[in-house]
């Protein structure tokens, strides 16, 4: 698999480390909503199809990326720097 890092360009899978589902919404730090925390930490949509996920370019620029990838074909349709997506704040759809 090749991931095209927005900074480094196309690089081999081996340079990246997977960091999981990027659609999860972390509750506010002071939140005491246990259900929301449980959902954030443990529950996964695990879609068969398009998946937005974090990858760190650990063997390169070390940036966190949000990669949109099809889990049925491994085809990658988008790669962005993580903060640009604001995904950590987005509510689960």
């Amino acid at each position: 698999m090749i991931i095209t890092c927005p900074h480094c360009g196309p690089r081999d899978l081996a340079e990246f480390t997977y960091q999981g589902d990027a659609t999860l919404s972390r509750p506010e730090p002071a939140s005491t909503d246990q259900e929301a925390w449980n959902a954030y930490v443990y529950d996964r949509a695990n879609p068969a199809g398009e998946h937005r996920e974090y990858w760190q370019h650990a063997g390169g620029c070390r940036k966190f990326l949000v990669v949109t990838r099809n889990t049925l074909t491994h085809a990658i349709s988008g790669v962005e720097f993580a903060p640009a997506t604001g995904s950590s704040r987005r509510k689960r759809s």
Partner: protein
Amino acid sequence: MAKQRPGFIADPVMRARAVSPLAGHIETGQFGVAVGQSPSVRLGERFGLSIAEVTAWKGRESKCRAAIKATASAALKVAPGSGSVKTAAGAFNIAPMRWLVSGESPELVANLADAVSEDGTVTDLSHGRTVIRVDGEKSRWVLAKLFAVDLSDAAMPRGNGLATAHHDIFAQIQRVGADAFDVYVFRSFARSFWHLLCRSAEEAGYRVD
């Protein structure tokens, strides 16, 4: 001597007291070279450089580039990976808003910190990296055995650099000449990497001075 700063910066490499991790582990001479042929790769350590990582705060990238230019006389473009190399100093972009700067001046890191000031942060890595130069017509062939990056002329103009890895060994590579590359590796991996590099170069024939 540089201005006293909290531990991190006023720490230039004092050659008299410094020991390279490769000291005593570099065998000089020609290797893997058939009789009547000359080696097509030269390998050597560049020891004693001042090395720093500069990271700009958001919106201060151009100020940091200017600071690098003022300190290391390296003119940097905005494009990812862009770099510049002179005899005494060089710099290249390794990540968004982040550069690796190196040079022979012991004051380099302190001067950089002064120049960058509030526009970003400077981390001294002079002791943390080992720099190995790979030069010669087969340098790309040898490096391609270890790194999955395109080092062709088109992909990597002179002066430019990138960050990559050989399994556990993280590396930053700058093209410093027509066929010359400087490879920056973590100091603790230097011996293993040197061994690996020599073995990879044996097929092409290499020389260590």
